[in-house]
């Protein structure tokens, strides 16, 4: 036996007491962007159809100057909360990743702009401070 019975009971009760009132929530929008797929896009050669087969259909298409920009995004939110009988703390931290692929008039990728913030999303409960 790993634990004697009274000790196991005490550990379970302690764990329940320490975590009572705790709420942990996670929410995402979209799918995480795969960096291997992004690095496979070659400026001046990769076509629009190849970008779609690599990453999928864009979440948004921006048009202007007879050109198109594919915009892919991914949101990640983490929200811990502590709901006690008399005092409640709730915090939510949301960050986004964004990928833009700029195409020229011939539908060839001419620029790729990618920013990743979701790696810094944290489960932070304390609502004070920065």
């Amino acid at each position, binding site marked *: 036996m790993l634990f004697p019975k009274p000790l196991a009971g005490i550990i379970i009760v302690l764990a329940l007491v320490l975590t009572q009132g705790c709420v942990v929530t996670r929410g995402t929008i979209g799918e995480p962007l795969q960096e291997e797929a992004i690095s496979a896009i070659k400026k001046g050669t990769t076509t629009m159809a190849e970008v779609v087969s690599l990453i999928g259909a864009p979440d948004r298409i921006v048009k202007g100057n007879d050109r198109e920009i594919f915009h892919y995004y991914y949101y990640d939110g983490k929200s811990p909360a502590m709901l006690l009988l008399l005092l409640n703390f*709730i915090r939510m931290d949301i960050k986004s990743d964004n990928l*833009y692929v700029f195409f020229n008039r011939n539908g060839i990728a001419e620029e790729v702009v990618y*920013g990743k913030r979701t790696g810094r999303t944290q489960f932070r409960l304390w*609502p004070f401070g920065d």
Partner: protein
Amino acid sequence: MTDVAVRFPSIRLIVGTLCILLLCAGCTVRRAVLNDVVTTEQVNFIRVGETTLVELADHIGAPDEVTESDFGFVALYYWSDTKSAGVDFGAIPRLFLPYAPTMTLNKTGVTPEQFQVVFDPQWTVRAYGFSRRTTDEPVVWFWPF
């Protein structure tokens, strides 16, 4: 006498703790943060007519939105820091009474902010600026009036 004297520090501790709990009773503090703040120091490197979108993305990351306007393409960076606090005066009576009327004061401050960069057709910065900047509000401020 000696008993009371010995117990006095612990009684004081208990009373102090109860007072703090009483002050915090019914309090709810919420905070929601979207993305990282873009500061004026971070965008000091931008030179109108020289800096490109790629250079901008290298420094402060990819924008949250790119849209077309009458003046050219605009890159938008969004962030917000929403603070909300409330106090429910019915929280303590509800522990003892079968019914306690709800009396809650709550204040929420949503502060969406933007950094906007306008580009010319060669994707060079034409203009940039921040949206209306708000002053820092305290996290706990439930007085709604």
